[in-house]
């Protein structure tokens, strides 16, 4: 028995050795495949990994006219300064606030609309609503911001003001884009407007994978439609919901740079500036490379940490996970 095992393992070792040798041989035969892949991977290394070298700027008193060896090293100075600056702390708060509002609204609306679409029995109606609601996903934020600005015009010619005035919900036109407390909600609801249709695709896909027998069984047991949704549809798409949540955990500090940037004005700057805008402002307009790079590093490191943590929590609680 033992000798058999030993023989098998010896065989396996020999096979492995042969495998290694033949791997090199194989590689020699796969020249075309190498030619088709390695240059592109080098390209990705150049454009995605080499810039990481620039992170050294966050630890230097970077001056563009000096060579790398001439730069003065300042240690963690810029990181410490970041957290002493009111503007950065504000932008951190705004980023997190906007992200949470957009993400929460995005989830709730997408799941709700997906469930509703799933309940529609006329395929034509379903297709039509889907076609229309996917469309804004393909528009640029510039265009979307233009449309939003058009809807939210501050006097009585604005679309939203017009509706509210007609319904007598407000007495005077509201200056939507000049009042701080509305800004995050405007960002959040615009995100919903642009992405809700597109976000339903994933959930609708998950719903088609639910076994129809479950619905039939529930029907026989006397479940109404609401109870079917609650006990079958929602548990059925739960893994998808969790995966989407893990993925968005890694983007909490990304907070959609473009719309706050395009919609900001002097009156609401305190609530509109995000980390990305901060980096742009300090890095490009004020040429404080060290500080801006430090802010960028902070953002990326926190994002990756959040992703890993969310993944870990999902793993521990026995749910689906991304990595």
């Amino acid at each position: 028995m033992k000798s058999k095992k030993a023989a098998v393992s010896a065989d396996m070792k020999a096979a492995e050795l042969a495998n290694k040798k033949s791997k090199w041989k194989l590689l020699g035969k796969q020249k075309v495949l190498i030619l088709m892949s390695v240059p592109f991977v080098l390209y990705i290394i150049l454009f995605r990994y080499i810039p990481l070298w620039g992170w050294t700027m966050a630890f230097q008193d970077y001056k563009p006219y000096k060579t790398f060896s001439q730069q003065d090293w300042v240690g963690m100075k810029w990181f410490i300064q970041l957290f002493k600056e009111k503007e950065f702390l504000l932008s951190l708060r705004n980023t997190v606030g906007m992200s949470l509002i957009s993400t929460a609204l995005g989830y709730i609306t997408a799941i709700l609309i997906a469930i509703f679409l799933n309940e529609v029995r006329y395929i034509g109606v379903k297709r039509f609503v889907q076609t229309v609601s996917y469309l804004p996903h393909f528009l640029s934020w510039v265009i979307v911001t233009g449309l939003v600005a058009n809807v939210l015009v501050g006097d009585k010619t604005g679309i939203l003001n017009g509706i509210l005035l007609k319904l007598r919900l407000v007495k005077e036109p509201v200056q939507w884009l000049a009042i701080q407390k509305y800004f995050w909600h405007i960002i959040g609801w615009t995100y919903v407007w642009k992405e809700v249709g597109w976000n339903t695709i994933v959930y609708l896909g998950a719903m088609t994978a639910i076994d129809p027998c479950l619905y039939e069984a529930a029907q026989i047991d006397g479940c109404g439609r609401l109870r079917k949704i609650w006990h079958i549809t929602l548990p059925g798409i739960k893994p998808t919901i969790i995966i989407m949540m893990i993925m968005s955990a890694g983007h909490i500090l990304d907070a959609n740079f473009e719309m706050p940037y395009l919609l900001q004005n002097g009156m609401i700057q305190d609530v509109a500036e995000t980390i990305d805008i901060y980096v742009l402002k300090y890095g490009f307009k004020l040429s404080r490379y060290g500080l801006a790079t430090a802010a960028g590093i902070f953002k990326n490191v926190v994002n990756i940490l959040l992703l890993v943590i969310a993944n870990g929590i999902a793993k521990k609680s026995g749910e689906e996970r991304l990595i």
Partner: protein
Amino acid sequence: MDKKNQYYTARRQTLISNVIFDIIIYLVLAFVVVATVYPFWNTIAISFNDGLDSLTGGIKLLPRKWTLQNYTNLFQTPRIFQAGIISVTRTVLQTVLSVFCTCILAYALSRKEFVLRKPLTTILVISMYVNAGLIPGYMLIKNLHLLGKYSVYIIPCLVDIFNFILVRTYINGLPDSFVESARIDGANEFRIFLQIIMPLIVPSVAMVSLFTAVGAWNSWFDTYLYCSNKPKLHSLQYVLMSFLQASQNQSSNANDAGAMALAANSGASTSMVTPISIRSSITVVATLPILVVYPFVQKYFVVGMTIGGVKE
């Protein structure tokens, strides 16, 4: 008899609740459709309305004073015409090159017998999560001497990792026998890719092309970062963005300045051009290509998204 009655009332109740539920669903979905379409429709109506008249507001579904002046002005403005050419050419070039390169890479790394498959794929996938940030990225472009050049629109985005994963997953779903039989017939890998694989992966290529083209057409931030001092290289979205910013950072002065500059450029009568009409007509022009392409590619969404589902 009593039992039968009970049965009927119960049934009527479920019927009524079903109907109420249906009504709620259709109302909500109708709201979604109206809320999605109306802002567009309104913008289109304004773009066909006389500029001065638009300022008084109240235009809803149809223009009050029909005119094509806004569009003729737009196309007579050299800046916007130039921007349109930049946007169209960069979209076409970037889409063709990027999709081709991404597909080659996806094919090579989909071959299970390829020895370097695992390490190379790992390098690519990790790069999705690594982001050096704005300033290091800018420094790279600067060191490569791409600043203020047209090639800055094409070179940095030749391979897209997300698209790579989509296409690779699609190729992995094809039976191996296609490739094997071609190999027995003596075709080399590149030829197999071009003549056997490419025709088979059309749905995923359509999907990836759409993503790339929309991304290229919609981008303005690269123009802003790398080419803002080269007016000849401004893209349509960038021009639209600068108009928007001018009217956002209020003081109607800035507004008027933009409009006046445009009017002076076009040599048309100033009275016709107002910021709101310029904005809406550029918005329509910048949206149009997407609206035109959209119905043709839409049927591939399902394919693309199910692949995405596999990946997730």
